[in-house]
């Protein structure tokens, strides 16, 4: 395991811990091996790539703390190379200029690459430390400044030096604008993928709308409103609709959505068709007393009446009205025995406790039952 707080890569310390040696012994050995033919450096790189980082102790993905700021050292090296380059141009010229210019470009690229791939990989998932883009910007600005400085001190004397100048310019631009360009490109791709997906979805929706939904409507139509087949078809239609037009509706569960959901559930259990119509923006939450009372009334209608049931919700800033109407045999409160708690407690009592009223009466012309729930608001707030 490589420790998270380290000098360069934590390789020596990890190796020392593993072998039970002292850290400085391992370091010395590595340096000696590096000097004699570079085997130490190779071994170091190999172990760095293969030995995993020490897992974090707590949940937070702690970044790797490196005591040597390698990226900044490379930036500094690039600066030094730039200064040397200008000196060379002014004094000797020739081959030394090419070497200095190449060194500057290589150091600059190295700094950015280190920052992007080594530092960046270590903190994957965690917050990028500050100064991550500072390396990039400093390097880019240095290179671009050099592009202007070199010709002004008379640095471009032949084609080869011109090529080096152009390379400096290109590398500077890429370093400065590269990540921005990559992000823009990725966004463009993501945008395009999203649009294609939306289009595909719309196409599927349209197709299903024209075929499956029509068939389901026909099945309901031919099978009779309260038959088993019609109920299944209706439930399927509802599910399909929800899937097709998902995203358009609100996730927030208001009274209307909630009543529609419970209507759907009731339609599966009872031979009933419940149509829920909402008018106005509902302020009421689905968990409220009036919602519970309305659900109870719907359950009653489904259980005792069946057939077509109409639910109408009208909400305004000052009041909320819910009507549940069925066309069953009908009943009145007086006809309900004392021990039957359903209507008396769950609907009337509940509304009274919530500060509203519930009226249970016969429907128009003595057909069916109509339950009317009414709740007033103090000052437009629920």
């Amino acid at each position, binding site marked *: 395991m490589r420790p998270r707080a380290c000098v360069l890569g934590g390789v020596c310390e990890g190796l020392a811990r593993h072998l039970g040696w002292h850290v400085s012994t391992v370091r010395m050995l590595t340096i000696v091996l590096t000097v004699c033919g570079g085997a130490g450096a190779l071994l170091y790189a190999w172990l760095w790539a293969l030995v995993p980082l020490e897992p974090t102790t707590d949940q937070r993905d702690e970044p790797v703390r490196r005591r040597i700021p390698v990226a900044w050292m490379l930036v500094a090296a690039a600066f030094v190379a730039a200064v040397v380059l200008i000196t060379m141009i002014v004094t000797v010229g020739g081959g030394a200029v090419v070497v200095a210019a190449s060194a500057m470009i290589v150091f600059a690229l190295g700094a950015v690459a280190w920052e992007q791939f080594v530092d960046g990989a270590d903190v994957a998932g965690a917050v990028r430390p500050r100064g991550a883009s500072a390396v990039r910007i400093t390097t880019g600005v240095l290179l671009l400044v050099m592009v202007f400085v070199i010709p002004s001190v008379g640095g471009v004397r032949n084609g080869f030096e011109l090529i080096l100048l152009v390379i400096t310019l290109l590398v500077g631009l890429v370093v400065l604008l590269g990540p921005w360009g990559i992000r823009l490109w990725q966004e463009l791709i993501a945008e395009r993928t999203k649009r294609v997906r939306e289009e595909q979805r719309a196409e599927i929706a349209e197709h299903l*709308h*024209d*075929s499956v*939904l*029509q*068939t*389901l*409507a*026909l099945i*309901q*139509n*031919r099978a*009779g*409103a309260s038959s088993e087949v019609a109920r299944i078809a*209706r439930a399927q239609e509802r599910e399909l609709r929800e899937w097709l037009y998902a995203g358009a509706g609100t996730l927030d569960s208001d009274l209307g959505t909630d009543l529609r959901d419970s209507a759907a559930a009731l339609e599966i259990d009872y031979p009933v068709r419940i*149509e829920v*119509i*909402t*008018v*106005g923006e509902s302020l009421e939450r689905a968990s409220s007393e009036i919602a519970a009372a309305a659900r109870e009334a719907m359950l009653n209608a489904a259980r005792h009446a069946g057939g*077509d*049931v*109409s639910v*109408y919700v*009208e*909400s*305004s*800033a000052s009041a909320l009205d819910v*009507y549940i*109407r069925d066309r069953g045999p009908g009943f009145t409160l007086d006809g309900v025995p004392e021990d039957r708690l359903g209507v008396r407690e769950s609907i009337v009592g509940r509304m009274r406790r919530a500060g509203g009223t519930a009226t249970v009466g016969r*429907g*128009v*012309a003595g057909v069916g039952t*109509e339950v009317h729930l009414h709740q007033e608001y103090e000052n437009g707030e629920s």
Partner: protein
Amino acid sequence: MSDERVTVVIVDDHSIFRSGLRADLDASIDVLAEAGDVDAAVEAVKQCQPRVVLLDVHLPGGGGGGGSEVIRRCAADCPDTRFLALSVSDSAEDVVGVIRAGARGYITKGSSGEQVSRAVRTVAGGDAVFSPRLAGFVLDAFGAASGEQAVANDELDRLSAREREVMRLIARGYSYKEVAAELFISIKTVETHVSAVLRKLQLSSRHELTAWALERRLL
């Protein structure tokens, strides 16, 4: 009224649905023709001059305008033909689009043959057909819940108190007859109110209505 023969043309792109509907309609309703897309529908309606066209909202062909396009292209040549929109969809845009194009009513395809037949006869008699959902939509679109109310009778952007009352009862699932009994008015008066609301729905420039219509590029 039920003795009178009513001629209809059924326009729907599903032959199964057309034949199902045809079989379900009353004996007093004569189906003159069927059509499966916009162009065929326009031709059939112009040729047969039916009393009522049962029109699917989503139709292939033509300029892509569906049912609304059929109504617009037939309007000049068939002054006596009324359109009854029939759709599986009950979304606000579909409803308002086809009503504003000139349909006299809107029912969903889940309706039984009996209901459709009744709606056909109502439309043939010159009245409008409002489903509970359409009534709820009208109340919503005209801001009735928040207490907006027309002061003058000819105001197009708001409902009068009586119209609102009628719409509310229809939304609660009342038939015209039940609305009439509840409000102690005649069925004829109910139908007058409903037709007035339909006219407002077609002519109003209320923001909510035009926004929906614009979204579907119907204006």
